[in-house]
């Protein structure tokens, strides 16, 4: 099963995933038109300042079991059988915000959904771009992310890759008589941002 996997250390905070997400969940699907739509489409991913000048792309993790699904009394939240994403059935959502209370990541929002059959305010959340996936396309945020901070991969594959990277890093200093990572420019830049 493919998931949107977040590598926060690669996030440069450009926010381009947020725009792509809002456009993907707009009526028109085009940037220039969507910014004039009413209701305004809203992004379902946040890019938040975190520690050490690292930005954290915060989105629904599609937990399983998902606290939000369990908290949802009218049964508006459901798991998509195709994509395994936790999705909202707008017809059933009563805006009670129980899901929001339950979500440990703080990713639920409420408002009208431009593409829902109802116009009232409903729960808005990441649907892992189910409709794009149906067309064989990547989730919009992943496509927009040029640094690889968001990737869409099988969790086992991602972990395999991360494991290899960790192994490499862990042995970097060995054999060179020092344990420190080289002070790359990237690290220097990070430090510039954090030290004062």
């Amino acid at each position: 099963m493919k998931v949107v996997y977040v590598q926060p250390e690669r996030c440069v905070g450009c926010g381009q995933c947020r725009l792509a997400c809002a456009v993907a969940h707009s009526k028109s699907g085009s940037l220039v038109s969507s910014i004039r739509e009413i209701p305004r489409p809203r992004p379902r991913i946040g890019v938040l300042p975190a520690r050490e000048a690292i930005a954290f792309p915060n989105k629904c993790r599609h937990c399983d079991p998902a606290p939000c699904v369990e908290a949802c009394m009218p049964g508006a939240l459901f798991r998509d059988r195709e994509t395994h994403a936790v999705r909202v059935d707008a017809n059933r959502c009563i805006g009670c915000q129980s899901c929001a209370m339950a979500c440990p990541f703080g990713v639920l929002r409420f408002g009208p959904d431009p593409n829902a059959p109802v116009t009232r305010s409903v729960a808005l959340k990441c649907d892992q771009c189910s409709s794009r996936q149906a067309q064989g396309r990547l989730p919009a945020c992943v496509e927009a992310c040029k640094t690889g901070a968001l990737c869409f991969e099988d969790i086992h594959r991602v972990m395999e890759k991360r494991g290899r990277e960790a192994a490499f890093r862990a042995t970097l200093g060995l054999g060179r008589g020092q344990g420190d990572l080289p002070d790359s420019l990237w690290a220097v830049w990070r430090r510039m941002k954090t030290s004062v």
Partner: protein
Amino acid sequence: KEEIQARTITEDGRLFLQKAAQDGLETVWDRYQAQQPQCGFCELGLSCRNCSMGPCRIDPFGEGPQRGVCGADADIIVARNLGRMIAAGAASHSDHGRDLVEVLRKVGEGKAPGYGIQSEEKLRKLASELGVAQDGKSAEALAVAVAEALEEEFGTRKKALAFVGRVPEKRRKVWEKLGITPRGIDRETSEMMHRTHMGVDNDWKSLLLHGLRNALSDGWGGSLIATEVSDILFGVPKPVASEVNLRVLKEDQVNIVVHGHNPIVSEMIFQAAQDPELLQLAEEKGAQGINLAGLCCTGNELLMRRGIPIAGNHLMTELALSTGLVDMMLVDYQCIMPALGEAARCYHTRMVSTSDKARYPFMEHREFRPENARQLARDLVQEAVESYTRRIPAKVLSPPGDAVKMMAGFSVEAIVSALGGSAGPLIDAIKSGAIQGAVGVVGCNNPKIRHDYGHVTLTTRLIQNDVLVVDTGCAAVAHAKAGLKVPEAAEKAGPGLQQVCRALGIPPVLHMGSCVDNVRIFDLAAALAHALGTDISDLPLAAAAPEWYSEKAVSIACYAVASGVYTVLGTPPPIFGSPNIVKLLTEDLDDLLGASFAVEPDPTKAADLILERIRAKRAALGL
């Protein structure tokens, strides 16, 4: 395959896109794809980097920040960004003009061997326009005096540029009222950079007005000087026949391709390519001759004056290399993709940069100065001949078939003379309705629009509706490749225009030159307005840039509108983050200037917008 079809409408383009893929050559379309999706903040004009409290961006969906750290809102940020695009475009044309003025002065001083004054008539005309005393001065002495007067246009001392005098009185009044009369060429650019600094001009309206002034300093300053001085130094273009597309590269000849914008270098190469000794050398090396071909505007400059064939436009520059037939490519400046040097390494092509202000990765730098140009050009042509012997046969693909025939060289002088010596017949044709109006279709290519599709579709529809099209730059090359630039293309025009073209023996799409030569179009428009005692904005004219990509194009579009010409852009400019600015530019400007912008990527719809506008203008004139 389908992807290649979608990229370009041209046959040679498709063929060599395949070849490039085989050769492992990355093209501009590949890089464009890799950049998708592009940054929406930047596309909407909503990101600002004008200071180091930033970078900042405005959330167009209204949830995130609506102001930069300084407090700038969407309107201010969009206006600042657009202002800087105009500044860069105006500066580019103007710096090009400056280089020509320098050569003019050196010619006058006898320090530019190989260069000369080819149109003393134009020099004398310019002298009297500028109020330079001629009293028995030699052409050389006059060249120095005119160069001095032109230098003054770049300065800071004047209340208005000299060439504002060419503008109809009504239009000058409009500019005065809005406070946008251009004063000094570099000054307006400098002031725009100042105004867009943090904490200077924070009124989006006054920023945009200064943008128009900055653009006018290009259209009635920098570009105009570039064109006029080029005519003096290299001759006023006259109708000339030539050929276009990649087939102009010859398998059995030494192919030298010039690319860029400034005729200073390419004209010297042209001379050297005719040197009998070098032709002899070429023959010794087994070549049937030395074939000079152009790309982009420096190509257009040579085409207009010397009938040199043209290999392609902006998006074809990498593909020209992929023929494996280019023995040397000489570049000066503007629109030369930094990717070219590396692309050429796939082939035997020698890449040579020539300007003191433009170097490129993987190119050899051989700097042209007025003093050394003649000799250097000879050396380089000789090296091109050597390079011919190093072609890599496995990498060569000669395009099958023939190049497309075309006609160019329609300077204002040439048009007037084709009309029999005065603009009268043109005015009559417009009045009678045989010609409904005239449109300048200009600008670049952009991978955002299917290559040449915008230009050719728009222009075909316009001439079908009896609208005369004049063109420059990459648009002109697109039209030429599509076969619209031969007298026989008259058959593609509506009945009225067809008749006029046949009577005069001209194509329905007239090639007026390079990008700086857009000023020729406005010179003509001003002359028509003068003749009719009216303002440019009252005439049934329009402009379009269906595939523009460059900041120069932004400046051109702005001086077009400020000069009173309705202008339709194909590629959307980065303004959609500010509804206020979109409204100002596409609606409210009409009240202020009698002209406005439209943005319409679909060239068929763009044609309809233009035709509607022309009908309205005709109705207002009682035609």
